[in-house]
């Protein structure tokens, strides 16, 4: 069997993997290896030709390929080795990776530490169980985006989009610019899932109707989609009888959420969070298996790539430190607990060592809420409060704490409504 030895191995060369690999090298890891199943670096950014990336990290508005380009340049200049067109089959807790490609066949990689950066994939019709026939013309928004933006294949002429996530709205604009008619964007929730900016620039600019509190109840068509039925939903998101309308269309795009791609993490038996569907990590982005680190959408689905890059630099840096035996050894662990109107916290654990460290904790709320007070507390009482004019599940929030202030075993974040 072909064998490769490295200090840090990074699985995935999308935004998370690129930032992690560059940071690991910068931290002093001598041999950094990236393993990617696509034939090019950059992951999903290659097909995200629209602007809106880099506003917080580079303070300028870049498109996906430009944003990826900045990191690809770094990785190439740093002399990081890449295995493209290579599928990882197994990751073990001891740092051994089995992968395969047509050049080397089954390959064993022995690494000092591993960064899991596999990203996420889209929910499909099967995940949300839309009734009806099974014709051609039903795509997830991201696969349609790949076809249109990378493969020069148009997906349809008259399109209904289910889900008001950012990818769905961006595809509404993209398909309109390419000459298709987008009949409507349909959202089951009573609020927009993606950013307001995208509603204005992708839907309003082109007069595309947005139907909140509606869902697709049935797909019609034999060979090809001939239309969909759309109905209003009640507060429990269940279709209201006699509100069904028929929309004539040949294509249905689904932008209904993302699932972290964690088959490798689960097979490695690391601890998982059943809310994020990603590995449980500490502030070093270290999983329950000390040698394995994780970052980006494989840990929790982010809304901004800038946040993915920042989190991944942390993972890469700490994976390098671990491989070089420099990661501080923890004295005790504090568990981060989501409180009122908080869906999850990331990292889920904080390792407290002799060194005081500043830790950034990211979180999402469950429900949109105005006039919110964030309360950060441990068992002994309130650590601090922060007032926010409004919170929204679509926009990730963050707070900072110092490990020196953490007594006890838990840290709780509540997002309370102010009266």
């Amino acid at each position, binding site marked *: 069997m072909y064998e490769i030895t490295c200090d840090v191995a990074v699985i995935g060369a999308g935004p998370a993997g690129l930032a992690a690999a560059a940071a690991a090298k910068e931290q002093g890891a001598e041999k950094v290896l990236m393993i990617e199943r696509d034939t090019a670096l950059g992951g999903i950014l290659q097909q995200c030709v629209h602007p809106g990336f880099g506003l917080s990290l580079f303070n300028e508005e870049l*498109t996906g390929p430009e944003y990826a*380009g900045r990191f690809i340049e770094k990785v190439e200049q740093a002399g990081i080795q890449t295995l493209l067109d290579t599928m990882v089959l197994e990751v073990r807790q001891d740092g051994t990776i089995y992968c395969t490609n047509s050049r080397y066949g089954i390959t064993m990689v022995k690494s000092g530490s591993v960064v899991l950066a596999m990203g996420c994939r889209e929910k499909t019709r099967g995940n949300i169980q839309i009734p009806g026939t099974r014709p051609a013309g039903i795509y997830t928004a991201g696969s349609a985006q790949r076809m249109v933006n*990378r493969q020069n294949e148009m997906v349809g002429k008259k399109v209904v989009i289910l889900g008001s996530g950012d990818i769905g709205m961006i595809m509404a604009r993209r398909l309109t*610019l390419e000459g298709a008619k987008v009949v409507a964007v349909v959202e089951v929730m009573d609020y927009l899932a993606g950013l307001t900016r995208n*509603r204005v*620039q992708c839907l309003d*600019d082109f007069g595309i109707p947005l139907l909140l509190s509606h869902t697709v109840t049935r797909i019609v068509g034999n060979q090809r989609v001939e239309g969909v039925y759309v109905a209003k939903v009640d507060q429990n998101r269940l279709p209201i009888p006699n509100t069904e309308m028929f929309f004539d269309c040949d294509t249905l795009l689904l932008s209904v959420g993302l699932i972290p791609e964690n088959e490798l993490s689960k097979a490695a038996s690391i601890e998982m969070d059943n809310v994020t569907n990603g590995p449980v990590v500490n502030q070093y982005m270290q999983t329950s298996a000390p040698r394995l680190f994780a970052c980006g959408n494989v840990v929790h689905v982010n809304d901004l790539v800038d946040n993915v890059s920042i989190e991944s630099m942390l993972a890469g840096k700490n994976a390098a430190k671990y491989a070089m035996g420099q990661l501080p050894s923890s004295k005790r662990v504090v568990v981060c607990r989501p409180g009122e109107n908080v869906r999850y916290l990331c990292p889920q654990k904080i390792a407290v060592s002799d060194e005081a460290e500043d830790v950034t904790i990211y979180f999402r709320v469950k429900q949109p809420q105005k006039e919110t007070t964030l309360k950060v507390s441990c068992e002994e009482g309130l650590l601090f409060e922060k007032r926010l004019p409004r919170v929204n599940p679509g926009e990730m929030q963050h707070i900072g704490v110092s490990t020196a202030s953490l007594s006890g075993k838990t840290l709780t974040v509540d997002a309370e409504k102010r009266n």
Partner: protein
Amino acid sequence: MEKEITCTICPMGCRIMVCGEGEVIQSVKGYTCARGEQYARSEFVHPVRILTSTALVSGSSEPLVAVRSSRPLPKELLMNCMKKIHMLHLQAPVYRYQVLIPNIMDTGVDIVATGEAKTQD
């Protein structure tokens, strides 16, 4: 004329009412910050957008290369600019930030590549 503008500067999404005619603004109401007021004024007088798309390329392993306008374009010209982009047929290699259509529709804005198309080995 009265126009409601949803501010896109931050996620608050303030609804701002602008009253005026052409380039003359009489009143701006509903903004909650200075940047928001500025946005509403320029959006009322002359809305502009960055245009992004793809262009056909031959001689590379991929059939398309990503493109953008070097600066925001007047909103009303986006569809006509798309027609010009559709007429492009490039030959690899194409480099990032290579100018593909200079001064599109006499706007002073260029269409440039954002991706790269390497020559196929």
